[in-house]
């Protein structure tokens, strides 16, 4: 892991590969399980996968409390690294961050990939479109996140430092996303500002946010395509890494500025 200094934040980031820049924004959990996928992307792209403030080993300034703050931090990071013609990929919570960046209309982003993203509220006040994973048993959390429970991590096999990292990630996710739960109520009204072509990838067995949510988001975006992935839940890049990596590479080839 490397360090990228952006303002007062020293961002921990996995940086790997050569080629067109691809910024990957991770979700709530299971970061370590996604590292092989990030290396696979690194065969085609220069991958930059920052750990959000409060997650992993990136310290969160006490004032930084909203997903909008993270979005501005990463817009600064694009400037700091002088990146251009960027493919921005966001998964789950990281998809919410990516959308908050995209509606700020950054000229440097030429393609947006959203994987089972959170961040939006489409339904009525008594419809919980995003499952309350904090209120689920450990078994149910696995069933909501994975098409095949065997793809879930074996926590008994992790050492103390790895488990602490998982605990920090979950704590940070709820700090930003506790209420309203994992969404910004007004974000859907600004989606027209996301100008970049988009690919919306969704695990067909995702029970955290169901595919219908992704299909609806695809309709609300200006220039988007929906790609359901069989045999995957909330994290298709863990369960079907080759499918997802191939789809992202093809999308990137179609969308060069």
């Amino acid at each position, binding site marked *: 892991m490397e360090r990228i200094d952006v303002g007062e934040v020293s961002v921990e980031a996995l940086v790997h590969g050569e080629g067109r820049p691809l910024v990957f924004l991770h979700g709530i959990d299971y970061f370590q399980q996604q590292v092989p996928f990030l290396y696979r992307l690194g065969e085609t792209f220069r991958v930059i996968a920052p750990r959000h403030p409060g997650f992993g080993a990136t310290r969160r300034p006490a004032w930084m409390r909203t997903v909008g703050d993270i979005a501005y931090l990463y817009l600064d990071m694009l400037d700091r690294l002088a990146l251009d013609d960027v493919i921005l990929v966001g998964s789950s919570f990281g998809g919410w961050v990516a959308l908050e960046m995209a509606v700020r209309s950054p000229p440097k982003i030429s393609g947006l990939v959203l994987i089972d993203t959170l961040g939006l509220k489409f339904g009525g006040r008594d419809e919980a479109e995003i499952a309350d994973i*904090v209120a689920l*048993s450990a078994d149910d*959390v696995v069933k909501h996140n994975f098409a095949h429970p065997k793809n879930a991590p074996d*926590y*008994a096999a992790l050492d103390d430092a790895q488990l602490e990292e998982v605990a920090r990630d*979950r*704590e940070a996710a*709820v700090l930003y996303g506790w209420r309203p739960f994992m969404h910004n109520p007004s974000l859907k009204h600004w989606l027209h500002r996301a100008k970049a072509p988009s690919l919306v990838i969704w695990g067909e067995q995702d029970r955290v946010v169901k595919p219908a949510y992704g299909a609806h988001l695809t309709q609300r975006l200006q220039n988007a395509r929906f790609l359901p992935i069989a045999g995957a839940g909330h994290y298709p890049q863990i369960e079907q890494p080759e499918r997802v990596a191939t789809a992202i590479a093809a999308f990137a080839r179609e969308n060069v500025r």
Partner: protein
Amino acid sequence: MMHTWHFSEMAYHPAWAQLNESYRVIIPSRLYDPKVGADLYHRYLDEWALCDELGINIMTNEHHATATCADSVCTIPMAILARETKKVRLLALGMPIANRENPIRVAEEYSMLDVISRGRIEMGFVKGVPFEISPANSNPADLMERFWEAHDLILKAMTSHDGPFSWEGTHFHYRSVNIWPRPYQQPHPPVWMPVGSPGSAREAASRGITIGVLNTGWTATPGIFDAYRETAAKCGREMTPHHLAYMALIGVGKTREEGWRRADQILDYSRTSGIVAPQFANPPGYVAPQMAATAIRGTATTARATRLQTRDGKPINPRTVNVEDAINAGLVFAGTPDDVWDQLKAFYDHVGGFGHLLMMGQGGHISHEDTVDNLTLFSKEVLPRMAELG
């Protein structure tokens, strides 16, 4: 002189037989019969009202979405008792201020109670157990930051008497804070908080807050009290034994058997209060990542379950604990008045003294008649000896 407080959680025990893996958070309220509940409320209030005659102070608390404690608003029984009683002091331990949206409302409730009771209120501010997070929808990741901001705002609201002030903090925003009435006690009613670790005892000590130590027993309590005393001395804060309170479940009888039988029934509080689905016992961010990591691995049920033991080092499972082990663990004082006094005195000496005994004199299925006899025997036979302590 040590002060004694009678505490009951106002349990709705009639539902317990129908509950399994969780007594909290997710249990449907169709299991609550309001007619039965009304009788129970009146009964528990009668027991507290009796305390005014017995010279035992009164303590309430609150929990939410649970059959273990039907007191979901700790200031409501206090509002009734503020007028129904005339002499004893009234402690709400207390208000979960990090889970309440509006600290100004808390300041108003406590101030109004203080005036109606003519200055008999003691204000508890509590972090709240982890299973309170879901019912309150309260962000666990910045809970204590919010707790201390609410604490500071409440005290400022109670002690500012020259018209409105503004508060633009991290969690609370008011352009015009100006509460009426102001409290009866000056500058404000005494402040309490429950603590369960030396770390939180130090935080309370540095602010001069009285601590209530619950369910920590023979082995864990001395370290907590020592941490308080050391920090108070380091901060140059004058302290008395009345900054330290200890809660025990108490069963007094005319015979040892009767006292133990009462304690055994009250112990159903300990046996039920920790029964909760694990995800509600460990919300993300409620404890530091080092501790949370253990829960993710699946080796910890609750912190309480792992730390309780008898004075001989025998681990205690609160769900199955019997009276004898609970006495040896310092959780229960039970038997004849002499037995109870001896156990209390031994515990007092072991922990280096304290000024308040929080007496759980009612819990679980113990009947009204037994509770009344328990409180009365304590008042007549044990209370007079308390002048030797504190």
